[in-house]
């Protein structure tokens, strides 16, 4: 019974962990604006957490530079299953303007399975909320499968 209660409450409040993989800071600012009072994603249950071990949703920004790649993979591997990986902005999906650079190891989908892509450069906070809502649904499906 307790397990069911815990599962129901975790489904309602997915916690976010944000990884900056060499981002230009544009997407990071948009993510912060999603969580601060104007858009206030906390009213939908999303909460930013400081450690990957507490997280359900991982938000990755930036083109995944070769310096950040081992750290990104290590942080993602610490997130407990079921987890949902959201790429924010064009960079982690394709490299965007940094594509082909000697120090860019992306796209992220080469290394881990990406669940949701939020396109934009940088995406509007509304689009980020849409993406997080979709990630919550995917998370729910993953939990049901388990």
């Amino acid at each position, binding site marked *: 019974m307790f397990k069911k209660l815990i599962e129901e409450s975790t489904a309602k409040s997915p916690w976010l962990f944000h990884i900056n993989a060499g981002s230009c800071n544009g997407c990071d600012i948009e993510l912060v604006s999603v969580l601060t009072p104007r*858009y206030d994603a906390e009213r939908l249950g999303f909460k930013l957490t400081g450690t990957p071990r507490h997280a359900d949703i991982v938000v990755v920004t930036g083109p995944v530079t070769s310096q950040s790649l081992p750290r990104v993979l290590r942080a993602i591997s610490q997130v407990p299953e079921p987890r949902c990986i959201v790429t924010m902005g064009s960079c982690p999906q394709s490299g965007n303007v940094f*594509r082909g650079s000697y120090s860019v190891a992306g796209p992220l989908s080469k290394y881990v399975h990406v669940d949701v892509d939020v396109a*934009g450069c940088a995406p509007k906070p*509304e689009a980020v909320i849409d993406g997080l809502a979709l990630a919550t649904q995917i998370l729910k499906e993953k939990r049901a499968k388990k």
Partner: protein
Amino acid sequence: MDLPFVKEAISQLFSKTSCAMYPAVPSEAAPGYRGRIVYHPDRCIACGMCERVCSGNAITRTVEKVEEGDKITLTFNLGSCTFCATCADFCSKDAIELTGDYHMVATKEEDLLVSGTFIKKPPVKKAPAAAPKADAAAKPGTEPDAPGCSIAPRDDGKPVCDKTKCVYCTLCAKKCPQGAIEVDRAEKTWNCDYEACVACGVCATVCPKKAIEM
């Protein structure tokens, strides 16, 4: 007992929220917002300018030979786009449009592709296009030394150079997305490969002396 902020707290309790209640209250992007790309293949002439100016390599063009001509497909990868709108600015036919639609959320990468296809007919098949073919064949001998006939505009909308105005600055050759124009500064010649030319009008726009007529 003095309770600070009680009045403020009670008044805030019954006041309107300062949040943008987004999923419940839909919101429109600000005017001029650059969101999802809409491509109009019916206006496109496949000059390749958008592909050339794209900083994120988001635009790919594939050419496929079919019976009626060349089947040209332009694909815009929104997952690689910076939404700078340079492609739309450079498009001389206004075939690319950036809309205010910002809902670009996908679970598969294919969902972020915007593409359009059109068939470009070869100039040989059309009746008015018979003239440029002959013109192009006669070009090497006639163009440089016959400035009189080159000022008359062509009926297919392709560029002609007024040799009296031209200063052979080579700007048109540099700007031509097809590389169809060849200008020799020393020899003072201006030649256009009319088979490669797509009549986009960039050369006429950039010409500082307005020597090119379409």
